């Protein structure tokens, strides 16, 4: 059975699948939040969602607009202060997986969310580090969710905000990259996406796995759940 879907939807679905069997996930707003909620609906109802606002075990019904939405606090198993979140929970590695985004990512999965251009005279001032640097070194596995473009995938970051050593997956709207000997390597393309298309949208020389896979398209269950979730 074939179902119509967008590559953005598939990106969310692939991110949600990556949480099957995981115990806990640290998430920000936007697509990561949607993916994690989808994972709880379809793959992993016991997944513990952690937001840096201090809500641990949040069970939001709707995708929150901000990480501080009231529903997160009201549905959480516990709510802690920001210092406790970073010192007792993130730093010691109690949260297994982190979903992060970024404006730039380099071949070693280092991330920039600080500035485009020169730091002192930036062309674009981005929001800054937030929780990312310590989340990326505290959690055992980091999954980056980013749009696939030459602007995002760059040879050299304008600013290294966050270290990439723990990154296990980079999930884009074109495919999935994984580190191989420390270098991000295309291991999966989404259905209908060619390696050339990925290469054209990558700002560094793209390493491609010899055993390149094609993503499973969203199942009817996944797609229905995702659309129902987003419509709430």
């Amino acid at each position: 059975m074939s179902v119509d879907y967008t590559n953005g939807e598939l990106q969310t679905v692939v991110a949600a699948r990556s949480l099957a069997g995981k115990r806990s996930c640290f998430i920000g707003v936007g697509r990561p939040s949607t993916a994690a909620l989808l994972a709880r609906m379809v793959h992993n109802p016991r997944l513990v969602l952690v937001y840096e606002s201090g809500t641990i075990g949040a069970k939001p019904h709707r995708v929150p607009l901000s990480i501080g939405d009231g529903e997160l606090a009201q549905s959480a198993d516990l709510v802690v202060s920001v210092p406790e979140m970073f010192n007792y929970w993130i730093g010691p590695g109690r949260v297994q997986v982190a979903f992060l985004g970024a404006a730039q990512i380099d071949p070693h999965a280092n991330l920039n969310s600080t500035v485009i251009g020169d730091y002192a005279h930036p062309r674009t001032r981005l929001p800054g580090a937030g929780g990312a640097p310590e989340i990326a070194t505290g959690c055992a596995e980091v999954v980056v969710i980013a749009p696939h473009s030459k602007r995002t995938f760059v040879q050299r970051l304008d600013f290294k905000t966050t270290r990439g050593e723990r990154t296990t997956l980079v999930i884009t709207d074109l495919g999935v990259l994984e580190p191989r000997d420390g270098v991000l390597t295309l291991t999966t393309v989404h259905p209908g996406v060619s390696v050339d298309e990925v290469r054209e949208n990558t700002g560094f020389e793209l390493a491609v796995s010899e055993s390149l896979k094609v993503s499973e398209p969203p199942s009817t269950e996944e797609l229905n759940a995702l659309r129902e979730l987003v419509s709430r």
Partner: protein
Amino acid sequence: MAQIVSLSEAVEATVQDGASVALEGFTHLIPFAAGHEVLRQGRRELELIRMTPDILYDQMIGVGAARKLVFSYGGNPGVGSLHRFRDAVEHGWPRPIEVEEHSHAGMANRYVAGASRLPFMVMRGYQGTDLATRTNVRTVICPFTGEQLAAVPALNPEVAIVHAQEADRDGNVQLWGIPGVQKEAVLAAQRSVVTVERIVDQLELRPGGVVIPGWVIDYVAPAPGGSLPSYALGITERDNDFYREWDRISRDREHFQAWMSEQGLLG
């Protein structure tokens, strides 16, 4: 012991031109009313401190009230950029702004050191990033293991302003929901103001309630709805539409100024 006064009295008594001021509230209980009162009183040259600048600081920066911003995440959560913050950093409009930025963990631990009246706090972080070369962080060697760790300096703002759900008549404050770093900010500051949704005869301790006793607070000021368009859990609702709308209002300088003028916030 906290004095219960009007919001304008509290701000007048604490915030002078040039002061370092932390208006805290991590995505919840953001003290909008107090920040707006600072603008109405025309305060300038402020060192604004806040983990997550949000719309309130976009407004304060946009009218040129800030000389410096100390922060860790300057975005409109879930929406996008803070356009006035970007304009100040990228184009120096309406005036150049100095920035000192940290990670959330760094800022949180700076407040912990401040609240503890210790000169610094130890953490793992900064190493191997460009932040380490661009901000006020140093290293310290563990005298037991030899590990090199990050040291972040205490943050002791001249003034901390936070918003809470309620206070009693002695100025004891209770807030609940996401507690952020508000307690740390109040305890770290030299002077503090807490605005509250309501004054009650007696605090009744809530699940998740954080109590700050009146004797470590300088001023308590009633400000019902004082955290809107942010929210006070159980009392007001976050105005998500306004957060989206702000993107439109703030994108253009003139549109922004017209809106601020309408609100009486040009100072």
